[in-house]
């Protein structure tokens, strides 16, 4: 090639800092880190549960205090953020066609939020929060 091609320099590690849209994309993607950590916490909880009461009680005692509180608060916030993002794209992920028309996105999103509210309430009630 005789001409020097134009190569746009793109940082491999900081590219998403260049545009708010990329930042929002990355903010959605990183929700997997607290969710994955929470899943591993559940794996540990079930393992300790299977080892008997003493093991489980010491595990639950280990996750009290400010550090654990902050960590779980991060999980709650990121999990909620993931949920809103997940439901907000459902009209694009699974459009509902009725005859010639597509069902308005707000109904699909709204239905997901309604089921989310009910499911959350059921979890809290069954778990004995109230």
């Amino acid at each position: 090639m005789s001409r020097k091609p134009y190569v746009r320099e793109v940082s491999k590690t900081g590219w998403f800092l260049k545009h708010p849209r990329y930042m929002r994309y990355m903010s959605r993607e990183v929700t997997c880190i607290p969710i994955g950590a929470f899943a591993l916490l559940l794996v540990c909880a079930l393992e300790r549960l299977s080892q008997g009461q003493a093991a489980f009680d010491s595990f639950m005692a280990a996750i009290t205090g400010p550090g654990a509180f902050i960590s779980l608060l991060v999980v709650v916030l990121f999990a909620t953020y993931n949920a809103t993002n997940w439901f907000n794209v459902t009209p694009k992920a699974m459009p509902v066609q009725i005859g010639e028309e597509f069902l308005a996105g707000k109904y699909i999103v709204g239905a997901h939020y309604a089921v989310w509210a009910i499911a959350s309430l059921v979890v809290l009630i069954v778990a004995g929060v109230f």
Partner: protein
Amino acid sequence: MAKSNKPIFWSLFAAGGTLAAFLAPALAVLFLMATLGHAPGMLTYAGLHAFAAGWFGKLFLMGVVTLFLWHAAHRLRVTMHDFGLRQDSVVAVVVYAIAALGTISTLVSLLSIK
């Protein structure tokens, strides 16, 4: 057509993301209460043991824990690439291995709770 295992991991990602969207916030709130010393009845030994002893509890916990794991593993694999870590084959082995070990551990734990 070239064979690809992408649909398997992607479908686990999508199923896990959907389940996490519906259930993860509420489940995390239960543990958040426990960190304050106010664990709800389900997060006491007696409560969780009774739940995990039944077939519904086993299925629920197995589904939730493993799908959360595989969702996070697949998304983390892609995110590592976005953060500039380009050794995808190594990243894939590590994240899927952790998810697989978590899956086996959960299965073993649940089956031993009677």
